[in-house]
């Protein structure tokens, strides 16, 4: 462990804003892209289902 306490970890040697903002942005980008991809795919499948029901009716 590089930090003596949770307070020291949160303070990040005075660089807390920059360090946590970087990791936060990274999590947002990596997680967000995957989330958006799978949502897009599901939405498309859903639309296809409605189109087929429409065509068959």
């Amino acid at each position, binding site marked *: 462990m590089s930090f003596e306490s949770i307070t020291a970890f949160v303070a990040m040697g*005075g*660089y807390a804003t920059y360090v946590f903002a970087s*990791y936060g*942005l990274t999590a947002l980008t990596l997680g967000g892209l*995957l989330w958006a991809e799978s949502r897009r*795919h599901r939405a*498309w499948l859903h639309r296809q289902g409605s189109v087929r029901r429409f065509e068959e009716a």
Partner: protein
Amino acid sequence: MWRWLHQWGSPKFFYHRSGALIPVLALASGLILGAGVFWGLLISPADYQQGESVRIMYVHVPAAILAQSSYAMMAVMALISLIWRLKIADAAVQTVAPIGACITLLALATGSLWGKPMWGTYWVWDARLTSTLILFFLFAGVLALRNAAGQSQTAGRAASVLAVIGLLNLPIIKYSVDWWFTLHQPASFTLTERPAMPFSMWGPLLMMVVGFYAWFFLAWLIRLRHELVKREVRSDWVQQMMKQ
């Protein structure tokens, strides 16, 4: 060998075979990135010059490496699509461009967040930063061209040509720190030499790089598979699959 390659060029074959990779990549990227963040953020030591801000390296450097290599992969796919007119290669170009653009933006943003405390500014027109910004515009240009003129083949060829020409930018990014010695530090991490930093630092860095790659192939694969079924929606194999 050629037969094997040929099979993978078929959207149907690719779609059915690649599905099994998704859970593997999801698990691998989740575990590796999780462990890498834990190692980099909590265990690895502070830098004697940069203090705790050096921890930004563990997300910035992998993002920058991935930004450049995803561009190289896109250009290779573009070349394949131009030469052999392989439909799946064109879909690969189209689907990797937005992911590459996002990762390039992430590299620029985390670099900016590192630059502020270390250089005193969020942005300078340093050669490395400027050429990375151009990389972002290249990704955006390929994406815009590909989606222009309603998914036509001409648009695909134009986008591929741009992607290949844009390869020129990669050596510029790589050597920018040596050619114009400005603010950005030269590479401290190469494939051929022993790293100058201790294992407690290059260990988590390497782990994050591997994790970023696993994530990238996962995101690319999901997007590519979606694009393939969308393009082939009228074909028998997609119709059959949707009935199930």
